[in-house]
Protein backbone atom coordinates (compact mmCIF):
# COMPACT_ATOMS: atom_id res chain seq x y z
CA UNK A 1 0.00 0.00 0.00
CA UNK A 2 1.31 3.42 -0.89
CA UNK A 3 0.12 6.85 -1.82
CA UNK A 4 2.05 8.78 -4.37
CA UNK A 5 1.66 12.30 -5.66
CA UNK A 6 3.27 12.77 -9.07
CA UNK A 7 3.92 16.33 -10.14
CA UNK A 8 0.77 17.49 -8.41
CA UNK A 9 0.07 21.17 -8.85
CA UNK A 10 -2.87 23.24 -7.67
CA UNK A 11 -3.78 26.66 -8.99
CA UNK A 12 -6.82 28.71 -8.15
CA UNK A 13 -7.26 31.26 -10.91
CA UNK A 14 -3.80 32.82 -11.22
CA UNK A 15 -2.69 31.98 -7.71
CA UNK A 16 -0.56 28.88 -7.16
CA UNK A 17 -1.53 27.05 -3.96
CA UNK A 18 0.65 23.99 -4.49
CA UNK A 19 3.76 24.02 -6.69
CA UNK A 20 4.53 20.78 -8.57
CA UNK A 21 5.00 18.25 -5.81
CA UNK A 22 6.28 14.69 -5.69
CA UNK A 23 5.92 12.64 -2.55
CA UNK A 24 5.46 8.96 -1.80
CA UNK A 25 3.87 7.80 1.45
CA UNK A 26 4.35 4.17 2.44
CA UNK A 27 2.05 1.71 4.17
CA UNK A 28 1.76 1.78 7.96
CA UNK A 29 3.39 5.16 8.36
CA UNK A 30 2.37 8.35 10.06
CA UNK A 31 3.32 11.32 7.97
CA UNK A 32 3.35 14.81 9.42
CA UNK A 33 2.82 17.78 7.16
CA UNK A 34 4.53 20.59 9.04
CA UNK A 35 4.09 24.20 8.02
CA UNK A 36 2.55 27.46 9.04
CA UNK A 37 -1.03 28.49 8.34
CA UNK A 38 -1.72 28.86 4.58
CA UNK A 39 1.39 26.83 3.69
CA UNK A 40 -0.88 24.48 1.70
CA UNK A 41 -1.27 21.58 4.13
CA UNK A 42 -5.04 21.43 3.89
CA UNK A 43 -5.00 21.74 0.11
CA UNK A 44 -2.52 18.87 -0.11
CA UNK A 45 -4.69 16.72 2.12
CA UNK A 46 -7.81 17.46 0.15
CA UNK A 47 -6.00 16.49 -3.01
CA UNK A 48 -4.77 13.28 -1.36
CA UNK A 49 -8.32 12.46 -0.25
CA UNK A 50 -9.92 13.24 -3.59
CA UNK A 51 -12.00 16.08 -2.18
CA UNK A 52 -10.19 18.44 -4.49
CA UNK A 53 -8.70 17.86 -7.93
CA UNK A 54 -5.15 18.92 -8.77
CA UNK A 55 -4.75 21.37 -11.64
CA UNK A 56 -2.20 18.99 -13.09
CA UNK A 57 -0.38 15.85 -11.98
CA UNK A 58 -1.55 12.47 -10.79
CA UNK A 59 -2.37 10.68 -7.57
CA UNK A 60 -1.58 6.98 -7.37
CA UNK A 61 -2.84 4.68 -4.67
CA UNK A 62 -1.68 1.07 -4.51
CA UNK A 63 -0.47 1.25 -8.05
CA UNK A 64 -3.80 2.58 -9.28
CA UNK A 65 -4.27 6.05 -10.71
CA UNK A 66 -6.98 7.58 -8.52
CA UNK A 67 -6.80 11.14 -9.84
CA UNK A 68 -10.34 12.42 -10.07
CA UNK A 69 -11.81 9.32 -8.43
CA UNK A 70 -14.67 10.27 -6.14
CA UNK A 71 -13.88 10.45 -2.48
CA UNK A 72 -16.75 8.08 -1.54
CA UNK A 73 -15.06 5.34 -3.55
CA UNK A 74 -11.66 5.89 -2.04
CA UNK A 75 -12.08 4.53 1.52
CA UNK A 76 -10.52 7.53 3.24
CA UNK A 77 -11.46 9.28 6.44
CA UNK A 78 -10.67 12.73 7.66
CA UNK A 79 -10.67 14.58 10.96
CA UNK A 80 -10.79 18.35 11.03
CA UNK A 81 -9.64 21.13 13.28
CA UNK A 82 -13.28 21.92 14.02
CA UNK A 83 -15.10 19.11 15.76
CA UNK A 84 -17.24 17.75 12.96
CA UNK A 85 -20.01 15.37 14.03
CA UNK A 86 -23.63 14.96 13.03
CA UNK A 87 -25.38 17.32 15.47
CA UNK A 88 -28.63 15.37 15.86
CA UNK A 89 -27.01 11.95 16.27
CA UNK A 90 -25.81 10.41 19.51
CA UNK A 91 -22.15 9.52 19.86
CA UNK A 92 -22.99 5.91 19.03
CA UNK A 93 -24.92 6.85 15.90
CA UNK A 94 -22.16 9.22 14.89
CA UNK A 95 -19.48 6.55 15.11
CA UNK A 96 -21.75 4.05 13.38
CA UNK A 97 -22.73 6.38 10.53
CA UNK A 98 -19.94 5.54 8.05
CA UNK A 99 -20.61 1.83 8.57
CA UNK A 100 -24.37 2.18 8.14
CA UNK A 101 -23.96 3.92 4.83
CA UNK A 102 -21.75 1.13 3.52
CA UNK A 103 -24.31 -1.44 4.65
CA UNK A 104 -22.43 -3.32 7.37
CA UNK A 105 -24.83 -5.52 9.39
CA UNK A 106 -25.94 -4.28 12.77
CA UNK A 107 -24.18 -6.89 14.93
CA UNK A 108 -20.88 -6.06 13.36
CA UNK A 109 -21.55 -2.34 13.69
CA UNK A 110 -22.23 -2.82 17.38
CA UNK A 111 -19.02 -4.72 17.90
CA UNK A 112 -16.82 -2.33 15.94
CA UNK A 113 -18.31 0.80 17.48
CA UNK A 114 -17.88 -0.70 20.93
CA UNK A 115 -14.22 -1.46 20.27
CA UNK A 116 -13.38 1.97 18.90
CA UNK A 117 -15.35 3.71 21.64
CA UNK A 118 -13.34 1.86 24.24
CA UNK A 119 -10.09 2.75 22.53
CA UNK A 120 -11.04 6.41 22.60
CA UNK A 121 -12.57 6.32 26.08
CA UNK A 122 -16.06 7.12 24.85
CA UNK A 123 -17.87 4.06 26.16
CA UNK A 124 -19.65 6.03 28.88
CA UNK A 125 -21.05 8.67 26.55
CA UNK A 126 -22.42 6.67 23.66
CA UNK A 127 -25.95 7.95 24.31
CA UNK A 128 -25.04 11.61 24.44
CA UNK A 129 -25.33 14.19 21.69
CA UNK A 130 -22.19 15.99 20.51
CA UNK A 131 -23.19 19.34 22.02
CA UNK A 132 -23.41 17.76 25.46
CA UNK A 133 -19.74 16.78 25.27
CA UNK A 134 -16.55 18.70 25.96
CA UNK A 135 -14.35 19.73 23.05
CA UNK A 136 -11.96 16.87 23.72
CA UNK A 137 -14.76 14.31 23.72
CA UNK A 138 -16.25 15.78 20.54
CA UNK A 139 -12.91 15.42 18.82
CA UNK A 140 -12.56 11.88 20.16
CA UNK A 141 -15.93 11.11 18.60
CA UNK A 142 -14.74 12.51 15.28
CA UNK A 143 -11.57 10.42 15.56
CA UNK A 144 -13.63 7.34 16.37
CA UNK A 145 -15.70 7.94 13.24
CA UNK A 146 -12.51 8.08 11.22
CA UNK A 147 -11.07 4.92 12.81
CA UNK A 148 -14.15 2.71 12.77
CA UNK A 149 -14.11 2.54 8.99
CA UNK A 150 -10.75 0.78 8.56
CA UNK A 151 -9.79 3.33 5.94
CA UNK A 152 -6.73 2.97 3.79
CA UNK A 153 -5.94 6.62 4.27
CA UNK A 154 -6.64 8.65 7.39
CA UNK A 155 -6.16 12.37 7.17
CA UNK A 156 -5.94 14.49 10.30
CA UNK A 157 -6.06 18.21 9.63
CA UNK A 158 -4.76 19.97 12.74
CA UNK A 159 -6.99 17.81 14.90
CA UNK A 160 -5.66 19.18 18.18
CA UNK A 161 -5.54 22.89 17.33
CA UNK A 162 -8.88 23.77 18.90
CA UNK A 163 -8.30 21.87 22.12
CA UNK A 164 -6.97 23.41 25.28
CA UNK A 165 -3.43 22.67 26.36
CA UNK A 166 -4.01 19.74 28.68
CA UNK A 167 -6.40 17.86 26.40
CA UNK A 168 -4.04 18.45 23.51
CA UNK A 169 -1.10 16.90 25.36
CA UNK A 170 -3.23 13.94 26.40
CA UNK A 171 -4.63 13.18 22.97
CA UNK A 172 -1.29 13.82 21.28
CA UNK A 173 0.29 11.07 23.35
CA UNK A 174 -2.51 8.65 22.49
CA UNK A 175 -2.63 9.35 18.79
CA UNK A 176 0.39 7.35 17.56
CA UNK A 177 -0.81 4.34 19.59
CA UNK A 178 -4.21 4.46 17.90
CA UNK A 179 -2.63 3.80 14.55
CA UNK A 180 -0.07 1.24 15.66
CA UNK A 181 -1.72 -1.96 14.46
CA UNK A 182 -3.55 -0.53 11.51
CA UNK A 183 -3.02 -1.22 7.87
CA UNK A 184 -3.25 2.34 6.71
CA UNK A 185 -1.44 5.51 5.81
CA UNK A 186 -1.91 8.36 8.25
CA UNK A 187 -1.33 11.98 7.30
CA UNK A 188 -1.24 14.53 10.07
CA UNK A 189 -1.11 18.26 9.39
CA UNK A 190 0.13 20.62 12.06
CA UNK A 191 1.74 24.01 12.58
CA UNK A 192 3.64 22.85 15.67
CA UNK A 193 7.13 21.38 15.40
CA UNK A 194 6.63 19.77 18.80
CA UNK A 195 3.65 17.80 17.41
CA UNK A 196 5.87 16.36 14.71
CA UNK A 197 8.57 15.35 17.20
CA UNK A 198 6.04 13.78 19.52
CA UNK A 199 4.30 11.82 16.80
CA UNK A 200 7.48 10.66 15.08
CA UNK A 201 7.10 8.79 11.82
CA UNK A 202 7.93 10.88 8.80
CA UNK A 203 7.76 14.62 8.39
CA UNK A 204 7.42 16.86 5.38
CA UNK A 205 8.31 20.50 5.96
CA UNK A 206 6.15 22.78 3.85
CA UNK A 207 6.47 26.44 3.03
CA UNK A 208 4.33 28.50 0.68
CA UNK A 209 2.97 25.60 -1.32
CA UNK A 210 6.24 23.68 -1.62
CA UNK A 211 7.43 20.58 0.18
CA UNK A 212 10.91 21.54 1.33
CA UNK A 213 12.03 18.23 2.75
CA UNK A 214 10.50 14.83 3.42
CA UNK A 215 12.03 12.06 5.47
CA UNK A 216 12.13 10.43 8.88
CA UNK A 217 11.07 13.02 11.43
CA UNK A 218 14.30 12.91 13.41
CA UNK A 219 16.42 13.09 10.25
CA UNK A 220 14.54 16.14 9.06
CA UNK A 221 14.97 17.69 12.47
CA UNK A 222 18.63 16.87 12.95
CA UNK A 223 19.75 17.28 9.36
CA UNK A 224 17.55 19.89 7.76
CA UNK A 225 18.36 20.01 4.08
CA UNK A 226 18.51 23.77 4.10
CA UNK A 227 17.85 26.82 6.19
CA UNK A 228 14.18 27.00 5.16
CA UNK A 229 13.47 23.48 6.34
CA UNK A 230 15.31 24.20 9.58
CA UNK A 231 13.27 27.35 10.14
CA UNK A 232 9.95 25.60 9.53
CA UNK A 233 10.98 22.89 11.98
CA UNK A 234 11.95 25.15 14.84
CA UNK A 235 9.80 26.71 17.51
CA UNK A 236 10.73 29.09 19.10
CA UNK A 237 12.36 30.40 15.91
CA UNK A 238 15.91 29.36 15.10
CA UNK A 239 18.77 31.80 15.75
CA UNK A 240 20.68 32.60 12.60
CA UNK A 241 24.00 34.40 12.42
CA UNK A 242 26.71 35.07 9.83
CA UNK A 243 30.09 33.58 10.63
CA UNK A 244 33.58 33.37 9.22
CA UNK A 245 35.64 30.20 9.38
CA UNK A 246 39.38 30.08 9.13
CA UNK A 247 41.22 26.87 10.00
CA UNK A 248 39.57 25.36 13.04
CA UNK A 249 38.43 28.72 14.32
CA UNK A 250 34.97 30.11 13.70
CA UNK A 251 33.71 33.52 14.73
CA UNK A 252 30.62 35.66 14.32
CA UNK A 253 31.30 38.27 11.65
CA UNK A 254 31.10 41.01 14.29
CA UNK A 255 33.90 39.21 16.18
CA UNK A 256 31.88 39.03 19.38
CA UNK A 257 31.99 35.26 19.75
CA UNK A 258 34.69 32.84 18.74
CA UNK A 259 34.94 29.07 19.01
CA UNK A 260 36.92 26.06 17.87
CA UNK A 261 35.20 23.77 15.44
CA UNK A 262 36.18 20.54 13.77
CA UNK A 263 33.55 20.61 11.02
CA UNK A 264 35.04 19.50 7.73
CA UNK A 265 34.23 22.48 5.56
CA UNK A 266 36.31 24.92 3.56
CA UNK A 267 37.31 28.23 5.07
CA UNK A 268 35.01 31.12 4.27
CA UNK A 269 31.69 32.73 5.10
CA UNK A 270 28.78 30.67 6.41
CA UNK A 271 25.56 31.00 8.29
CA UNK A 272 24.90 29.09 11.45
CA UNK A 273 21.56 28.03 12.79
CA UNK A 274 21.25 27.47 16.52
CA UNK A 275 18.06 26.11 18.03
CA UNK A 276 16.97 28.06 21.11
CA UNK A 277 17.40 25.08 23.43
CA UNK A 278 21.08 24.96 22.49
CA UNK A 279 21.62 28.34 24.10
CA UNK A 280 21.22 27.99 27.83
CA UNK A 281 22.03 29.77 31.05
CA UNK A 282 24.08 26.76 32.14
CA UNK A 283 26.71 24.66 30.39
CA UNK A 284 25.35 21.75 28.45
CA UNK A 285 27.36 19.38 26.27
CA UNK A 286 31.13 18.91 26.17
CA UNK A 287 31.83 21.80 23.96
CA UNK A 288 30.33 25.15 24.88
CA UNK A 289 31.09 28.74 24.07
CA UNK A 290 30.04 31.81 25.99
CA UNK A 291 27.94 34.60 24.57
CA UNK A 292 27.19 37.88 26.28
CA UNK A 293 23.73 39.30 25.94
CA UNK A 294 21.47 42.05 27.16
CA UNK A 295 18.09 40.65 28.22
CA UNK A 296 15.15 41.93 26.17
CA UNK A 297 12.38 39.69 27.42
CA UNK A 298 12.40 36.89 29.93
CA UNK A 299 9.38 34.65 30.14
CA UNK A 300 8.38 31.32 31.57
CA UNK A 301 6.74 28.68 29.45
CA UNK A 302 5.75 25.74 31.57
CA UNK A 303 8.90 24.61 33.33
CA UNK A 304 11.16 26.25 30.77
CA UNK A 305 12.54 29.77 30.58
CA UNK A 306 12.57 31.70 27.36
CA UNK A 307 15.11 34.52 27.30
CA UNK A 308 15.32 36.92 24.38
CA UNK A 309 18.55 38.90 24.30
CA UNK A 310 20.65 41.06 22.03
CA UNK A 311 24.24 40.53 21.07
CA UNK A 312 25.58 43.18 18.77
CA UNK A 313 23.00 43.84 16.09
CA UNK A 314 21.32 40.46 16.44
CA UNK A 315 18.34 39.36 18.49
CA UNK A 316 18.69 35.88 19.99
CA UNK A 317 16.31 33.48 21.65
CA UNK A 318 17.38 30.98 24.26
CA UNK A 319 15.45 28.23 25.95
CA UNK A 320 16.66 26.84 29.28
CA UNK A 321 15.25 24.22 31.57
CA UNK A 322 13.89 25.26 34.91
CA UNK A 323 13.07 28.73 36.09
CA UNK A 324 15.85 31.16 35.24
CA UNK A 325 15.08 34.57 36.62
CA UNK A 326 16.51 37.45 34.52
CA UNK A 327 15.73 41.14 34.65
CA UNK A 328 15.04 43.14 31.54
CA UNK A 329 18.13 45.12 30.52
CA UNK A 330 20.40 42.92 32.57
CA UNK A 331 23.72 41.89 31.04
CA UNK A 332 24.05 38.17 31.21
CA UNK A 333 26.24 35.33 30.08
CA UNK A 334 24.81 32.34 28.20
CA UNK A 335 26.34 29.14 26.87
CA UNK A 336 25.96 27.77 23.36
CA UNK A 337 26.38 24.10 22.61
CA UNK A 338 28.85 24.15 19.73
CA UNK A 339 28.28 20.50 18.76
CA UNK A 340 24.66 21.28 17.84
CA UNK A 341 25.38 24.15 15.45
CA UNK A 342 24.06 23.80 11.94
CA UNK A 343 26.26 25.32 9.22
CA UNK A 344 24.75 26.57 5.96
CA UNK A 345 26.59 27.70 2.86
CA UNK A 346 25.87 30.74 0.70
CA UNK A 347 22.97 28.86 -0.95
CA UNK A 348 21.53 28.12 2.50
CA UNK A 349 22.28 24.39 2.15
CA UNK A 350 23.35 22.43 5.19
CA UNK A 351 27.06 21.62 5.00
CA UNK A 352 27.72 19.78 8.26
CA UNK A 353 25.80 17.00 9.87
CA UNK A 354 24.97 18.01 13.39
Amino acid at each position, binding site marked *: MSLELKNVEKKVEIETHIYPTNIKLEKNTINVLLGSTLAGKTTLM*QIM*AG*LDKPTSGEIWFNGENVTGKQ*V*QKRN*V*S*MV*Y*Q*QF*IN*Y*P*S*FTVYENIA*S*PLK*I*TGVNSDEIKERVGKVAELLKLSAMLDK*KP*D*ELSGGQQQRTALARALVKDSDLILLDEPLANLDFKLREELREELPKLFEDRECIVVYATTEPSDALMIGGNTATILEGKIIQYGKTLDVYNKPKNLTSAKVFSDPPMNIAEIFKSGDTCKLTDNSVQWKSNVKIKDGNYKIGIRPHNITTYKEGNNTVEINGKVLISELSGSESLIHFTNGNLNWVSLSNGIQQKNIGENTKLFMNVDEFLYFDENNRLVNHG
Partner: protein
Amino acid sequence: MNKTINQKAWFFVVPVFVLVAFNAAIPLMTVVNYSFQETFGNNVFAWEGTRWFKQILLSERFHDALGRQIAFTFIILLIQIPLGIGIALTMPKKGWGVPVCLILMSMPLLIPWNVVGAMWNIFALPDIGFLGYSLNAIGFDFNFTQQPGDAWFTTILMDVWHWTSLVVLLSYAGLNSIQPAYYQAAEIDGASRWATFRYIELPKMKKVLTLAILLRFMDSFMIYTEPFVLTGGGPGNATAFLSIDLVKMALGQFDLGPAAAMSLIYFFIVLLVCWVFYSLMMKNEVKS
Protein backbone atom coordinates in the same frame (compact mmCIF):
# COMPACT_ATOMS: atom_id res chain seq x y z
CA MET B 1 -19.59 53.10 53.15
CA ASN B 2 -21.87 56.00 52.38
CA LYS B 3 -24.32 55.70 49.55
CA THR B 4 -24.17 58.65 47.19
CA ILE B 5 -27.58 60.16 46.83
CA ASN B 6 -28.15 61.48 43.35
CA GLN B 7 -31.73 62.29 42.48
CA LYS B 8 -30.67 63.29 38.97
CA ALA B 9 -30.62 59.60 38.10
CA TRP B 10 -34.39 59.77 37.88
CA PHE B 11 -34.02 61.81 34.72
CA PHE B 12 -32.51 58.79 33.04
CA VAL B 13 -35.24 56.43 34.10
CA VAL B 14 -38.31 58.60 33.64
CA PRO B 15 -38.29 58.82 29.82
CA VAL B 16 -38.34 55.04 29.45
CA PHE B 17 -40.99 54.80 32.09
CA VAL B 18 -43.21 57.33 30.31
CA LEU B 19 -42.58 55.76 26.93
CA VAL B 20 -43.50 52.26 28.05
CA ALA B 21 -46.52 53.58 29.93
CA PHE B 22 -47.89 55.40 26.90
CA ASN B 23 -47.18 52.83 24.24
CA ALA B 24 -47.91 49.63 26.11
CA ALA B 25 -49.31 49.76 29.59
CA ILE B 26 -51.94 52.50 29.22
CA PRO B 27 -53.46 51.30 25.91
CA LEU B 28 -53.55 47.74 27.16
CA MET B 29 -55.24 48.80 30.39
CA THR B 30 -57.79 50.79 28.37
CA VAL B 31 -58.65 47.62 26.49
CA VAL B 32 -58.87 45.66 29.73
CA ASN B 33 -61.09 48.43 31.09
CA TYR B 34 -63.47 48.27 28.12
CA SER B 35 -63.60 44.49 28.19
CA PHE B 36 -65.34 44.42 31.56
CA GLN B 37 -67.77 47.26 30.97
CA GLU B 38 -70.55 48.46 28.71
CA THR B 39 -70.38 51.97 27.34
CA PHE B 40 -72.92 54.08 25.50
CA GLY B 41 -70.58 56.94 24.80
CA ASN B 42 -70.54 60.21 26.74
CA ASN B 43 -68.17 58.53 29.16
CA VAL B 44 -70.97 56.51 30.74
CA PHE B 45 -69.86 53.03 31.79
CA ALA B 46 -71.68 50.08 33.33
CA TRP B 47 -69.93 47.07 34.91
CA GLU B 48 -70.50 43.82 33.01
CA GLY B 49 -68.00 41.41 34.59
CA THR B 50 -66.99 38.54 32.32
CA ARG B 51 -70.08 38.78 30.15
CA TRP B 52 -68.24 39.89 27.00
CA PHE B 53 -65.65 37.17 27.33
CA LYS B 54 -68.34 34.51 27.61
CA GLN B 55 -70.24 36.02 24.72
CA ILE B 56 -67.18 36.04 22.46
CA LEU B 57 -65.96 32.58 23.41
CA LEU B 58 -69.41 31.12 22.75
CA SER B 59 -70.20 33.07 19.60
CA GLU B 60 -70.27 31.27 16.32
CA ARG B 61 -68.91 34.33 14.56
CA PHE B 62 -65.73 34.20 16.64
CA HIS B 63 -65.37 30.46 16.10
CA ASP B 64 -65.67 30.93 12.35
CA ALA B 65 -63.14 33.76 12.25
CA LEU B 66 -60.73 31.78 14.43
CA GLY B 67 -61.18 28.72 12.23
CA ARG B 68 -60.44 30.74 9.09
CA GLN B 69 -57.46 32.29 10.81
CA ILE B 70 -55.99 28.95 11.87
CA ALA B 71 -56.57 27.46 8.43
CA PHE B 72 -54.92 30.43 6.74
CA THR B 73 -51.87 30.44 9.02
CA PHE B 74 -51.51 26.69 8.75
CA ILE B 75 -51.65 26.72 4.95
CA ILE B 76 -49.19 29.55 4.48
CA LEU B 77 -46.72 28.00 6.97
CA LEU B 78 -47.02 24.70 5.15
CA ILE B 79 -46.15 26.40 1.88
CA GLN B 80 -43.70 29.09 2.95
CA ILE B 81 -41.39 27.11 5.23
CA PRO B 82 -40.53 24.26 2.82
CA LEU B 83 -40.53 26.61 -0.15
CA GLY B 84 -38.28 29.08 1.67
CA ILE B 85 -35.82 26.34 2.65
CA GLY B 86 -35.91 24.99 -0.89
CA ILE B 87 -35.12 28.35 -2.44
CA ALA B 88 -32.36 29.01 0.09
CA LEU B 89 -30.76 25.65 -0.79
CA THR B 90 -30.62 26.53 -4.47
CA MET B 91 -29.20 30.01 -3.98
CA PRO B 92 -25.52 30.47 -4.90
CA LYS B 93 -23.02 30.64 -2.05
CA LYS B 94 -20.48 32.86 -3.74
CA GLY B 95 -19.95 35.00 -6.80
CA TRP B 96 -22.02 37.70 -8.39
CA GLY B 97 -25.19 35.66 -7.97
CA VAL B 98 -25.24 36.26 -4.23
CA PRO B 99 -26.06 39.99 -4.20
CA VAL B 100 -28.45 39.56 -7.12
CA CYS B 101 -30.40 36.87 -5.29
CA LEU B 102 -30.37 38.72 -2.00
CA ILE B 103 -31.70 41.91 -3.58
CA LEU B 104 -34.38 40.02 -5.52
CA MET B 105 -35.40 38.25 -2.34
CA SER B 106 -35.58 41.43 -0.28
CA MET B 107 -37.77 43.27 -2.79
CA PRO B 108 -41.17 41.94 -1.67
CA LEU B 109 -40.25 42.65 1.95
CA LEU B 110 -39.64 46.32 1.18
CA ILE B 111 -43.07 47.01 -0.30
CA PRO B 112 -45.64 48.58 2.07
CA TRP B 113 -48.33 46.13 3.02
CA ASN B 114 -51.28 48.08 1.66
CA VAL B 115 -49.43 48.47 -1.63
CA VAL B 116 -49.03 44.70 -1.77
CA GLY B 117 -52.78 44.38 -1.24
CA ALA B 118 -53.57 46.94 -3.93
CA MET B 119 -51.09 45.38 -6.36
CA TRP B 120 -52.61 41.95 -6.02
CA ASN B 121 -56.11 43.32 -6.14
CA ILE B 122 -55.45 44.84 -9.55
CA PHE B 123 -53.26 41.91 -10.64
CA ALA B 124 -56.06 39.42 -9.92
CA LEU B 125 -59.04 41.36 -11.26
CA PRO B 126 -60.80 39.02 -13.67
CA ASP B 127 -61.48 41.63 -16.35
CA ILE B 128 -58.32 43.73 -16.42
CA GLY B 129 -55.75 42.13 -14.09
CA PHE B 130 -52.97 40.10 -15.67
CA LEU B 131 -53.45 37.08 -13.40
CA GLY B 132 -57.26 37.16 -13.38
CA TYR B 133 -57.56 37.78 -17.09
CA SER B 134 -55.01 35.08 -17.98
CA LEU B 135 -56.69 32.49 -15.76
CA ASN B 136 -60.02 33.20 -17.40
CA ALA B 137 -58.46 33.20 -20.83
CA ILE B 138 -57.10 29.68 -20.35
CA GLY B 139 -60.45 28.44 -19.22
CA PHE B 140 -60.67 28.86 -15.45
CA ASP B 141 -63.74 30.57 -14.10
CA PHE B 142 -61.73 32.80 -11.79
CA ASN B 143 -63.25 35.70 -9.85
CA PHE B 144 -61.85 36.44 -6.42
CA THR B 145 -64.46 39.10 -5.67
CA GLN B 146 -67.30 36.61 -6.06
CA GLN B 147 -66.03 33.14 -5.26
CA PRO B 148 -64.68 32.30 -1.79
CA GLY B 149 -62.27 29.65 -3.11
CA ASP B 150 -60.72 32.12 -5.53
CA ALA B 151 -60.48 34.73 -2.79
CA TRP B 152 -58.58 32.27 -0.60
CA PHE B 153 -56.35 31.24 -3.47
CA THR B 154 -55.44 34.86 -4.21
CA THR B 155 -54.88 35.77 -0.56
CA ILE B 156 -52.61 32.79 0.01
CA LEU B 157 -50.71 33.42 -3.22
CA MET B 158 -50.22 37.05 -2.19
CA ASP B 159 -48.94 36.09 1.23
CA VAL B 160 -46.59 33.50 -0.20
CA TRP B 161 -45.27 36.08 -2.66
CA HIS B 162 -44.87 38.69 0.05
CA TRP B 163 -43.35 36.66 2.87
CA THR B 164 -41.55 33.55 1.57
CA SER B 165 -38.49 35.78 1.14
CA LEU B 166 -38.22 36.20 4.89
CA VAL B 167 -37.96 32.44 5.34
CA VAL B 168 -35.48 32.30 2.45
CA LEU B 169 -33.22 34.96 3.95
CA LEU B 170 -33.26 33.38 7.40
CA SER B 171 -32.61 29.88 6.03
CA TYR B 172 -29.86 31.20 3.79
CA ALA B 173 -28.15 32.80 6.75
CA GLY B 174 -28.48 29.53 8.66
CA LEU B 175 -27.04 27.52 5.77
CA ASN B 176 -24.11 29.88 5.33
CA SER B 177 -23.08 29.46 8.94
CA ILE B 178 -22.41 25.74 8.39
CA GLN B 179 -18.69 25.12 8.06
CA PRO B 180 -17.62 23.54 4.74
CA ALA B 181 -15.94 20.74 6.69
CA TYR B 182 -19.39 19.32 7.50
CA TYR B 183 -20.15 18.88 3.82
CA GLN B 184 -16.75 17.31 3.23
CA ALA B 185 -17.28 14.90 6.11
CA ALA B 186 -20.63 13.90 4.63
CA GLU B 187 -19.04 13.49 1.22
CA ILE B 188 -16.33 11.25 2.65
CA ASP B 189 -18.98 9.16 4.40
CA GLY B 190 -20.79 8.85 1.10
CA ALA B 191 -23.94 10.44 2.50
CA SER B 192 -26.66 11.19 -0.04
CA ARG B 193 -27.87 14.72 -0.75
CA TRP B 194 -31.01 13.99 1.24
CA ALA B 195 -29.03 12.61 4.21
CA THR B 196 -26.79 15.67 4.15
CA PHE B 197 -29.87 17.87 4.29
CA ARG B 198 -31.66 15.82 6.90
CA TYR B 199 -28.74 15.20 9.26
CA ILE B 200 -26.53 18.24 8.81
CA GLU B 201 -28.34 21.17 7.27
CA LEU B 202 -31.69 20.80 8.99
CA PRO B 203 -30.32 20.36 12.54
CA LYS B 204 -27.91 23.24 11.97
CA MET B 205 -30.79 25.44 10.78
CA LYS B 206 -33.01 24.54 13.70
CA LYS B 207 -32.64 27.84 15.50
CA VAL B 208 -33.22 30.11 12.52
CA LEU B 209 -36.13 27.96 11.39
CA THR B 210 -37.72 28.21 14.83
CA LEU B 211 -37.39 31.95 14.51
CA ALA B 212 -38.78 31.93 10.98
CA ILE B 213 -41.80 29.85 11.98
CA LEU B 214 -42.47 32.06 14.99
CA LEU B 215 -42.26 35.26 12.97
CA ARG B 216 -44.42 33.88 10.19
CA PHE B 217 -46.92 32.52 12.67
CA MET B 218 -47.29 35.84 14.47
CA ASP B 219 -47.45 37.94 11.33
CA SER B 220 -49.90 35.70 9.51
CA PHE B 221 -52.05 35.21 12.58
CA MET B 222 -52.40 38.98 12.90
CA ILE B 223 -52.69 39.68 9.18
CA TYR B 224 -54.90 42.64 8.42
CA THR B 225 -53.75 45.18 5.85
CA GLU B 226 -53.24 42.97 2.83
CA PRO B 227 -56.53 41.02 2.87
CA PHE B 228 -58.33 44.21 3.89
CA VAL B 229 -57.15 45.92 0.72
CA LEU B 230 -57.42 42.79 -1.44
CA THR B 231 -60.80 41.35 -0.48
CA GLY B 232 -62.07 43.46 2.41
CA GLY B 233 -62.80 40.17 4.17
CA GLY B 234 -65.15 39.03 1.42
CA PRO B 235 -66.83 37.71 -0.49
CA GLY B 236 -69.27 37.54 2.39
CA ASN B 237 -67.10 36.69 5.35
CA ALA B 238 -64.94 34.21 3.44
CA THR B 239 -61.62 35.92 4.17
CA ALA B 240 -62.65 37.77 7.34
CA PHE B 241 -59.71 36.70 9.49
CA LEU B 242 -59.60 37.52 13.19
CA SER B 243 -58.22 41.02 12.94
CA ILE B 244 -60.58 41.98 10.11
CA ASP B 245 -63.50 40.69 12.10
CA LEU B 246 -62.24 42.53 15.16
CA VAL B 247 -62.07 45.86 13.36
CA LYS B 248 -65.58 45.30 11.96
CA MET B 249 -66.86 44.73 15.46
CA ALA B 250 -65.03 47.61 17.08
CA LEU B 251 -65.31 50.31 14.43
CA GLY B 252 -68.11 49.06 12.18
CA GLN B 253 -70.56 48.17 14.91
CA PHE B 254 -69.00 50.17 17.74
CA ASP B 255 -69.33 47.18 20.09
CA LEU B 256 -66.40 48.31 22.20
CA GLY B 257 -66.92 45.89 25.10
CA PRO B 258 -67.02 42.65 23.09
CA ALA B 259 -64.31 43.95 20.76
CA ALA B 260 -62.05 44.63 23.75
CA ALA B 261 -62.73 41.15 25.12
CA MET B 262 -61.97 39.66 21.71
CA SER B 263 -58.71 41.62 21.50
CA LEU B 264 -57.56 40.16 24.78
CA ILE B 265 -58.52 36.62 23.82
CA TYR B 266 -56.75 37.10 20.48
CA PHE B 267 -53.65 38.42 22.25
CA PHE B 268 -53.53 35.47 24.63
CA ILE B 269 -53.90 32.94 21.82
CA VAL B 270 -50.88 34.42 20.02
CA LEU B 271 -48.89 34.56 23.23
CA LEU B 272 -49.77 31.01 24.20
CA VAL B 273 -48.99 29.46 20.84
CA CYS B 274 -45.64 31.26 20.62
CA TRP B 275 -44.69 30.25 24.12
CA VAL B 276 -45.65 26.59 23.71
CA PHE B 277 -43.95 26.34 20.33
CA TYR B 278 -40.76 28.02 21.49
CA SER B 279 -40.50 25.91 24.64
CA LEU B 280 -40.99 22.73 22.66
CA MET B 281 -38.39 23.64 20.07
CA MET B 282 -35.81 24.78 22.59
CA LYS B 283 -36.40 22.01 25.11
CA ASN B 284 -33.15 20.25 24.27
CA GLU B 285 -31.09 23.36 23.73
CA VAL B 286 -30.94 24.56 27.32
CA LYS B 287 -27.85 22.63 28.28
CA SER B 288 -25.68 23.99 25.52
